[in-house]
């Protein structure tokens, strides 16, 4: 039989940003195997900036090559790298003042995992990744003695856009009420929570009644009918954004199950077209066979009644409920 599971997902978005007149050439330089600083009066800033960090006056772009060697001014050893760090083995993060620059760049130093190799004042040298995209991550540093000669083939167009895939990993158990709701679906039951203050039944429960500001527990839970009324629907035409898995239009509706006060939103309908849907239409949940049900799409944030637990929502043939009677629940 299908089992409950911990929530484990990565929320991920690609962020694209324009680079501007100073960072653009800097990132172009990194892609092409060169590190550039920005002149600021008698100083050279690296990382380069569009403004004087002391006066905040705008600086005209005026870039000059620095490095590839430099000196470590401050460092700390990363014994447990995160998934977002440049190396998956222990490494040093350092303030690196590149030769010819007057300010320091924060970057990673790979010593082959040896913290003893790190020290303030040590000499390091830039190394470039074989795959470069016009990003600060195109470069890293090693102790000067470990540096290898590199032949870098410059790219064609200047870098004017950066893309950064940001991600948040979430790992936690299902909250107790979510676990009971999900288990209910595996068992072919829809579980709601009845407010001890107002008597209103919410599906799925959130563990509280937000209208009365009261927490709810297993003692407040009730099994509700698997027959309900369509209170709203729409057709989705999938836009092909990052992470989109849908390709064809489909219907999504909200169903107010009998005896409840809050519709379950976001129910996918695959066997009816939008022209066949009506507000007020009566539908019955036809469950999948028990061994075919899955609730892996339910986490603590998203997921109500996923199509991985039902075969279809089948019209009961009863007369429609007048839309006027559903006004309170049209969501």
């Amino acid at each position, binding site marked *: 039989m299908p089992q409950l599971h911990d929530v484990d997902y990565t929320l991920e978005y690609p962020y694209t940003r324009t680079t501007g007149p100073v960072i653009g050439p800097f990132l172009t330089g990194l892609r092409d195997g060169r590190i550039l600083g920005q002149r600021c009066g008698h100083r050279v800033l690296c990382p380069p900036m569009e403004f004087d960090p002391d006066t905040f006056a705008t600086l005209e772009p005026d870039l000059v090559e620095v490095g590839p060697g430099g000196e470590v001014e401050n460092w700390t*050893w990363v014994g447990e790298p995160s*998934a977002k760090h440049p190396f998956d083995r222990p490494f040093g993060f350092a303030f690196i003042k590149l030769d010819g620059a007057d300010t320091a760049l924060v970057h990673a130093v790979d010593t082959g995992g040896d913290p003893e190799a790190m020290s*303030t004042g040590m000499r390091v040298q830039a190394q470039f990744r074989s795959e470069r995209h016009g990003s*600060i*991550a195109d470069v890293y540093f090693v102790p000067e003695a470990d540096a290898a000669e590199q032949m870098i083939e410059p790219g064609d167009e200047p870098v004017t856009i950066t893309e950064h895939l940001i991600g948040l990993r979430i790992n936690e158990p299902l909250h107790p009420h979510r676990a009971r709701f999900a288990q209910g679906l595996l068992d072919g039951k829809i579980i709601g929570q009845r407010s001890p203050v107002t008597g209103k039944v919410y599906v799925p429960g959130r563990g509280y009644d937000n209208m009365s500001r009261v927490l709810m527990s297993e003692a407040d839970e009730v099994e509700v009918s698997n027959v309900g009324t369509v209170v709203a629907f729409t057709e989705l035409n999938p836009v092909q954004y990052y992470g989109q898995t849908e390709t064809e239009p489909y219907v999504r509706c909200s169903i107010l199950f009998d005896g409840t006060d809050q519709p379950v939103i976001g129910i996918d309908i695959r066997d009816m077209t939008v022209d066949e849907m009506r507000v007020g239409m009566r539908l019955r949940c036809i469950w999948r066979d028990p061994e075919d049900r899955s609730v892996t799409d339910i986490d603590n944030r998203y997921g109500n009644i996923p199509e991985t637990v039902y075969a279809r929502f089948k019209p009961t043939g009863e007369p429609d409920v007048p839309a006027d009677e559903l006004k309170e629940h049209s969501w």
Partner: protein
Amino acid sequence: MVSLAEDVAIVAFAQTASHAHFNDSEPAMIMPCVNSVIEQVGMDRHDIDFTIAGSCDYLSGMPFAFVMNIDAVGAWPPVYESHVEMDGAWALFEGFVRLQSGDIDTVLVSGSGKCSPGSYREGFSLQTDPYVHAPIGLDPRTQAGFQAQALIAAGKATERDFAEVVARSHANAKANPYAQLSGDRSVDDLLAEPYVQQPLRRLDCPPTSDGAAAMVIARADKARELSDNPVWIRAVDHRIESHHPTLRDLTDSPSVRIAAERVGLHDGPVDIAELTVTYSPEEIILRDALGLNGDTAVNPSGGPLTGSPFMAVGLTRVIELARAIANGDGRRGVAHASSGPALQQNLLCVLEGDG
């Protein structure tokens, strides 16, 4: 002295324990705090004029997670409401400033955060410079490591000094029922622990924590009506340093020095200081920048090293100070909240007891 248009006092406060993992939603964590402060002031929820919360969607792992948190504050029928993507201490700051206009009397403030489901090191690295820091995952613990190393290199502190901060914090937390970590730890034992972020050891860093806090603040006349023992907010100030750590003197906190001057910190005695010491070296910098001497009790609650629900932890410092003053442990003190890596942003709040 700071000149205020309106005197403002804290009239009710509540906090959750600092949980290693709170196994329910963020609204379910906040709701009991909100209910407690509303009960303390004995008001109908809809008679509270303004509501403001602080939280972080990166921690919650959901776009617009802060909207869900409104479930906890009783926002239906609709209330006058706002949110800051900051610690609850900044929500308090906005509420305090809002009361200065004199047209409303009461503000409900909350702060909440669940660090346990995600990785705060990865999440908060996204708040750094998007071109030169975020793509290499420059995280707050690394920046704390830089700060620690800078203190050592400048001869301003040693690893033993860091361990002494930890030992004192954990000992103080024994009397704090909300603390997540507490106990008697010897400095030598602490120094025998391995590094997690050289020169920092595990207990130099905060525990992973979930928690929430709430408070009601009110203008003077209303405050006296709602509370027999109001704690007055005499001044609040917030200052920011560069987000480029290499452009800062990490061994000092000029932003704290300016804020201390602006709030008139030393215009009176400083009996208690509740400081957002997220990493142990920060206490050494803050004591120095605040000009504290042996007369001030620093983090009698144990501070964030013993429980650090991000986005509630700064507001909790204000609450811990307010409780101590309300209990008569001191008459005047300062609460400090921090945002950004390595004390990049600092907020000071001076509280004083009645009479």
